[in-house]
């Protein structure tokens, strides 16, 4: 059996194991051991991948393919390149930290959580459009219950909105995928094989738009981002973590893997439209975050901005910018997970997320606060943390274009880093610094060990990328070779 399938099988096994359990201790054991195994498997995949890569020049490694639906040439085809490996690592890290952040949740929660994990891992290892889409939807649907049942605030509205908007995106996607399959000759669903086929240009236009918007909805593309604030605000902590940290990456990854890779020509010609949209996302999200008063809303808008940057960079179609995009996905995934886990810590104690009602938490919960500051710095792109690396790579890469349009857009996008600083510092200043506003807060305790665990793990990852980016960068850069070959055909 292919090692990649293990990543799907473990969560599946966990799901089944959870279904027969009633006891909370048992549930905890299952999920911690299970997601620990997933992490181990992810690391193993990474190691094996690196070994293979040393001796192979194939675009995708560890591939395997089994016929599933022969009439439609659907295969269960898996394989990874450097980018998917990184995404898998990211997902496994966020998933296990999410487990620790959801330490006190009941069994059913984890059942859906495991389903989500199945979707996410399956998506990243898929090479077949159909299975990719299948896992994509598998990952989306548990959100409804995770938010609807265990969320707070306007949870039903938010859950419905999020699910419907994302599903609307996937409706676009479905049409696009069928378009790709049939216009490319209807002989294969394998992405690598499809990339060798040519899709007629008149079809590429609409397919590219559909696919890009379809994935873009999940990547919080303006103006399809509004599920993000409401959804994140209502979701329970670990769901926000996984959603913002991993699920939103599904969008960026898909845009890159499907839209750009298979339809490079349309990407060339249409990128300007989407560049404008993503450019708006970047700046707009940042400005949108400035006035928010709910911690989660701030982060949600910030995610819009940061994920917008991912799509923005992908659309620049330059190798460096795309490298930056992947780095940004990693970086945003980690730091936003960190943010949400800390917001969870704060919220579980103060029972409010309104920044106007909090103050001076640094004094009350120093550990969580320091971590929050670190997350904030990562978000505003402080060197030494991952955000800086990715943003700089994106800006440098985007600036490689000689046309004024892209350069001006890049410059506009760079302004977001200032605005980011504004809202991050505003939040930090209001919530963590200053005098303690609510005397009741003085009695609150700091983070528990399991919460600390997730925060520390995430900070370590953020710092690791920030301090030693070249390892990751190298892997990504090399993996972009096939895409660049596609793009450079035109």
């Amino acid at each position, binding site marked *: 059996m292919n090692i990649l399938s293990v990543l799907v099988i473990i969560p599946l096994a966990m799901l089944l194991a959870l279904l027969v359990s009633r006891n909370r201790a048992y549930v905890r054991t299952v999920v911690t051991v299970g997601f620990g195994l997933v992490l181990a498997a992810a690391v193993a995949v990474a190691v094996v991948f690196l070994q293979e890569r040393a001796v192979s020049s194939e675009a995708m490694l560890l591939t395997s393919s089994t016929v599933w639906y022969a009439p439609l040439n659907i295969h269960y085809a898996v394989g990874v390149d450097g980018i998917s490996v990184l995404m898998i690592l990211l997902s496994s890290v966020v998933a296990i930290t999410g487990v620790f952040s959801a330490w006190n949740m009941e069994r059913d929660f984890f059942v859906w959580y495991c389903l989500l994990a199945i979707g996410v891992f399956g998506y990243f290892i898929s090479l077949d459009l159909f299975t990719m889409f299948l896992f994509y939807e598998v990952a989306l649907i548990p959100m409804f219950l995770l938010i609807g049942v265990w969320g707070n605030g306007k949870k039903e509205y938010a859950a419905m909105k999020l699910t419907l908007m994302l599903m609307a995106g996937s409706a676009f996607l479905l049409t696009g995928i069928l378009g790709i399959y049939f216009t490319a000759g209807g002989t294969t669903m394998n992405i690598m094989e499809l990339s060798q086929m040519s899709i007629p240009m008149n079809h590429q236009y609409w397919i590219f738009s559909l696919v890009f918007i379809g994935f873009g909805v999940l990547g919080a593309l303006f103006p399809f981002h509004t599920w993000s604030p409401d959804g994140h605000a209502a979701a329970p902590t670990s769901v926000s973590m996984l959603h913002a940290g991993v699920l939103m990456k599904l969008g960026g990854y898909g845009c890159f893997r499907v839209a750009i890779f298979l339809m490079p020509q349309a990407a060339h010609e249409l990128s300007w439209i989407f560049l404008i949209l993503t450019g708006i996302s970047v700046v707009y999200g940042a400005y949108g975050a400035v006035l928010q008063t709910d911690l989660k809303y701030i982060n949600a808008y910030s995610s819009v901005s940061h994920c917008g940057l991912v799509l923005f960079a992908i659309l620049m179609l330059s190798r460096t910018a795309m490298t930056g995009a992947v780095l940004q996905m990693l970086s945003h995934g980690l730091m936003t997970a960190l943010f949400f886990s800390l917001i969870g810590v704060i919220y579980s104690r103060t029972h409010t997320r309104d920044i106007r009602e909090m103050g001076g938490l640094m004094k009350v919960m120093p550990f969580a606060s320091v971590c929050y500051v670190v997350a904030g710095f990562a978000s505003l792109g402080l*060197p030494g943390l991952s955000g800086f690396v990715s943003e*700089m790579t994106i800006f440098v890469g985007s600036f490689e274009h000689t046309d004024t349009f892209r350069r001006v857009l890049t410059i506009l996008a760079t302004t977001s880093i200032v605005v980011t600083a504004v809202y991050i510092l505003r939040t930090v200043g209001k919530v963590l610094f200053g005098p303690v506003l609510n005397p009741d807060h003085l009695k609150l305790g700091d983070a528990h060990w399991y919460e600390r665990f997730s925060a520390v793990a995430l900070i370590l990852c953020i710092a690791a990328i920030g301090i030693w980016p070249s390892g990751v960068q190298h892997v990504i850069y090399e993996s972009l070779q096939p895409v660049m070959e596609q793009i450079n055909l035109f």
Partner: protein
Amino acid sequence: MGFTVYIILVPIVMFLFLSLGSKWLKPRTAGIIGTAGMAVSTLLSYFTAYRYFFVEGQQNGVYAKITAFTAEWLRFGDKLHIDMGVLLDPISVMMLVVITTVSLMVHLYSLGYMKGEVGFQRYFGLLSLFSFSMLGLVVATNIFQMYIFWELVGASSYLLIGFYYTKPTAVAASKKAFIVTRFADLGFLIGILILSFNTGTFDFGLLTADNASLAVTTMSGGSFLGLSAATWAMSLLFMGAAGKSAMFPLHIWLPDAMEGPTPVSALIHAATMVVAGVFLVARMFPLYVFAAPDVLTLITYVGAFTALFAAVIAITQTDIKRVLAFSTISQIAYMMVALGVSGMGGHAGEGYTASMFHLFTHAFFKALLFLGAGAVIHAVHSNEMENMGGLRKYMPVTHITFLIACLAISGIPPFSGFFSKDEILSAAFQHDKFIFAVLWVVAGLTAFYMFRLYYRIFWGAERRYDKHPHEAPAVMYVPLIVLAALTCVCGMLPFSKFVSSDGAPFSAGINWGIASASVLVGIAGIAVATWFYKKASDRPARAAAKWAGFWDAASHKFYMDEVWQFVTKKIIFRCVSRPIAWFDRHVIDGTMNALGTMTEKASETIEPVQSGKVQTYALVFVFSVLIITVGVFLL
């Protein structure tokens, strides 16, 4: 000279050690460890300076740029990559010495000054972090490394300014400092992008080699809005520099930043961080001279205006740290002007040397002033001049060292300020008489407000102190003495032998004509200050009343804060952010919700059709069949 890398690494190790171990370390231990670490760096810096200037640095009579250490950190593509390394050349070595020295003094001083504060360990950790960042900045081998440390400097200064995090003003000030400099850094970043895109490199060595020929050839074209790429890039870089160095109109953060602990002000806002901008311009100097001379003119005028502007404001301030802050702005503007009026090579590059020289001397005496002010604040627990007076009796050491520093900044020989200032004035004189005149006036104003400060602290009417003010402990006044000593002697250094625009030593004599002019105006300033402030009198008030409007404006810093407040609060928040937030909630989200509502509405609208009446159904059935038939016929 690979060991130089440890100058930088020691502080960061200290930072990690102190901040991670803060729980387990006693405050005093932490302080001592931090100071010891800094001392190691300082010693290494001195050793480096020795090796560089006297043993290894000179090649063919020119001080070369030596890359002591380099490693690739991040590769962007085939061409561009960020290295992390240590670049040694006269200015970076000079900066190493200045930074480590001042930092060590501040560390020492803080042991006393910060005693008993909550978060003592954190404080030392952050000091180490700051030192690390600043050292990394000056030894950067390429512009991106510089940017990286530039940002780190910003962040660590944010943390230091906001050290008293429960104090709302400190929090606000730290935020303001960070955001304003961040805004400026945006210019820096875009400048880097333009520069690196055109030249294909970040490396200082390649960029500045051969009179910046690389930039000249690649960037003179490509005009955008009528300006060449080089002009754009260099102006944007200057924007970054102006932000850190508090040039008008980006100076507003600096006075507020005085909310931080006073030693921090001494370190950051006097000696090190604020001169980073000057350092950046100096670093890129060949590019300015050869690729974008227009920008150099811009720098000159901005600098000159800032110098005058800040000096005027300084006269009116009553918070002693703010006076010092404006004086810093003014002095840094001086350095900027010096760079602006400079040319390249030999005596034409005198301004460059002068600028660096002034940076060097200013670091010591301004640190001294801040630390002295800190000692005073420590003694009287206030920043306001009204709460001071006649302290010379209680704090003799502070008094003397403060006086030395005041004399130095006023350009009175033989103190160090005199030499560097004189050099700047003469460079300006050669370049542009008008600029010279401005600087000359500023010199006089400087002397005046410094002595106003001096008199109001140490002379004047004696206040009734709640607690008897006393001299600072030894651990605080020893640094004062050391710095005072440095202030006295460092002016004698033959600076141009070491630091010059092209690396070739030359000898710069003192232009006695200009020197005497500057000394005269300095003495005049002192005299006026003496007349006004030595004794408590109503003269200042009368003078102020006479110029009421102007005085008011100046004491309100010419309303620059309000202007900025307007720009940020009104324009960014009200006119951009709020509409966007509204737009998002109501238009974008509204559209999405409207889709839902429309669907519901549509559902509601067609509902009556399903009336439950079987005949209606039949009617619909028949009409549908008929319509479809006709439709198909028509098809």
